[in-house]
């Protein structure tokens, strides 16, 4: 896959006229640095969708080609990568997963009036609010994930007391906790019995655990708002201390690759856009997993491949409807999408929000160290904009 893309870039460099008739998608993404691990699966998924479209006759009767530039997990380099793919003739831009590392490139796209998509940003800023009117994200807002876990645990696990443990390192974590804090207290008979904070790189969270253990009664759920590696380390230490509450987290810890950190883990649940474990109720999801395995030799390591597939799918539909690649026209079509069906559930964009403020999510629970889908949940009301901007 990588080699193929690489060959494409070389070809684009060597023969600028080669792309004359093709539509060009510009990827300004991390190919090195720590962000690479998150970007590459989503980019691979995006390419799978591009190849599917090309195989079925292309877009507006033209084939889709792509160019790539490496952001090196660096903000300066990201802005440069954005300009580079513009120089190479991109018609739309796909930028890094994380808002901070994607935005400098997306801003360059915005300056050209070009549509840009974040691979999997879940902060409301990765759209109109933080980039401009033509920026979108392919993923589901962090606050939705937190709210989903609140409502699901209340409805199906009789969660009445909750404890909020927030890792203050990045904005994503705060988004999860914002969603939980918005939803959980509105539910019947619930109470948040305590809160604490830590940092992802803390060598030990012993004193945070001591505080949980000092509660008179173990909370029903612990809303852990964190990401790997801090989240894995926190779960290991919480379970080691003998705390058996149901632990909730956001999609960021989906995947079984980290489970060795907390052997025989049980009672840990996360919301996902689709299941990587082969038990998703929707056959399209498993079809994608198979296509991904065929392309890379391995199944997706986490759900973060899926948004890449979804965003190309939605963008291509909007281009088809607009009949042009013009940024403003494509944006207008995207904003018309109301519960637009995709392989991973319906998606909606409005002129106010280029994100999903409500989404059908699969709940994956880990029992005895093995993850499985235990249900599906859509929050009863979308997360309002003022909560998202809080």
């Amino acid at each position, binding site marked *: 896959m990588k080699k193929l893309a690489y060959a494409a870039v070389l070809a684009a460099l060597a023969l600028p006229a080669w792309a004359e008739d093709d539509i060009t998608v510009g990827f300004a993404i991390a190919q090195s640095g*720590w962000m690479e691990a998150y970007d590459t699966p989503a980019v691979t998924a995006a390419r799978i969708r591009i190849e599917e479209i090309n195989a079925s006759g292309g877009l507006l009767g033209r084939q889709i080609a792509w160019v790539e530039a490496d952001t090196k997990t660096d903000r300066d380099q990201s802005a440069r990568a954005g300009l580079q793919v513009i120089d190479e003739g991109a018609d739309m831009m796909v930028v890094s997963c994380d808002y901070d590392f994607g935005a400098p490139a997306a801003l360059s796209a915005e300056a050209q009036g070009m549509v840009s998509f974040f691979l999997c940003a879940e902060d409301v800023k990765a759209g109109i609010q933080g980039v401009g009117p033509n920026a979108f994200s392919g993923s589901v807002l962090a606050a939705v994930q937190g709210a989903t876990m609140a409502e699901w645990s209340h409805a199906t696990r009789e969660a009445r007391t909750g404890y909020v443990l927030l890792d203050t390192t990045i904005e994503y974590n705060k988004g999860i906790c914002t969603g939980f804090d918005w939803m959980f207290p509105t539910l019947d008979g619930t109470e948040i019995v305590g809160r604490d904070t830590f940092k992802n790189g803390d060598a030990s969270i012993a004193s945070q655990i001591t505080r949980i253990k000092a509660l008179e009664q173990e909370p029903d759920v612990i809303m852990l708002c964190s990401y790997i590696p801090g989240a*894995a*380390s926190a779960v290991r230490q919480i379970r080691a201390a003998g705390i058996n509450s149901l632990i909730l987290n956001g999609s960021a810890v989906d995947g079984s690759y980290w489970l060795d*950190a907390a052997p025989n883990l049980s009672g840990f649940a996360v919301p996902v856009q689709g299941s990587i474990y082969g038990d998703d109720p929707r056959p399209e999801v498993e079809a994608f997993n198979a296509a991904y395995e065929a392309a890379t030799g391995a199944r997706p390591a986490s759900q973060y491949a899926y948004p890449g597939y979804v965003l190309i799918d939605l963008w291509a539909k909007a281009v088809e409807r607009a009949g042009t690649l013009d940024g403003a026209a494509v944006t207008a079509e995207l904003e018309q999408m109301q519960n637009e069906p995709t392989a991973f559930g319906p998606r909606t964009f409005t002129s106010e929000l280029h994100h999903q403020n409500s989404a059908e999510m699969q709940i994956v629970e880990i029992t005895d160290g093995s993850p499985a889908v235990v249900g599906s949940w859509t929050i009863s009301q979308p997360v309002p904009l003022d909560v998202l901007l809080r």
Partner: protein
Amino acid sequence: MTNFAQLFFDAASLGGLYAMAALGIALIFGVMNLVNFAHGEYIAFCVFALIVPSTDAVAVMFLGRAPAVLLVPLILVIGGMIAVASEYAVFRHLRNADPVAMMISSFALGFVIRNVLLATYGGRPKAISLWPELNTPVQIAGASVPLLQVIVILTTLLVVAALAFLLKKTRLGLEMRAAAENFTMARLLGVRANVVITGAFALSGALAAAVALIMATQTGVADVRMGGQIMLVAFIATVIGGLGSLPGAVAAGFLIGGVSVLLQAFLPLEARPFRDAFLYTLVIACLLLRPQGLFVPASAKPRV
């Protein structure tokens, strides 16, 4: 939050970890005035040595599969080896350079190690199942303490005792202390400079390896950035303790760990995210009160 025994164990185990890292930095500073910013990368390197090199998401244990009796000495040796290798490849050629040039080269070396790890293992943090049973809590003095915390505290004490023995009772130790006092003079008096420096690097690397084993067991993850935070704290501890003073480094390591845990425990929720700001303000205050550090080695007194 009234369980002081619990608080004591939390503080002592974090402090012990910092103390060991600080010792590793102080040892090298003592013999060659080098602030070794690559120390954090030695730690990360040792953690990653536990798993098979691959960019796959799922980590496969490599050295980590060996039984503890073999694994512990093996990792300590690996830590020592990377430290000695870096001395041989880089710092040996900089002996007469300005301390600033040495410091920046150590940073550059750390940058190289970190990026080699990134390229070999990928950017995704890996899970490591190393001795999970050590996290089982035991009851001591009314506190429920993970076995590992006890082990950390005991290990720190053991390491400090062993180092003290080494420095006081062996020829290498004597030479190291002499070198730390006044390196040029020691050389003139027949101290074997290369042996002393290599020895200090080997010990420092082994200490990094010990920290790596503890962190891997405690957190269950391997991440290229994991050594950075602890290295900085250790660096500060080394200075607060009095640069070149080994007991000072240990004491300051425990002090910083203790203060950090106390702040986390007693700050109100709104102020807790600012924990590190309070911690570092105390660091500045401490430096202003005792600019030469808590324990001033004789060599640090200005000679006019």
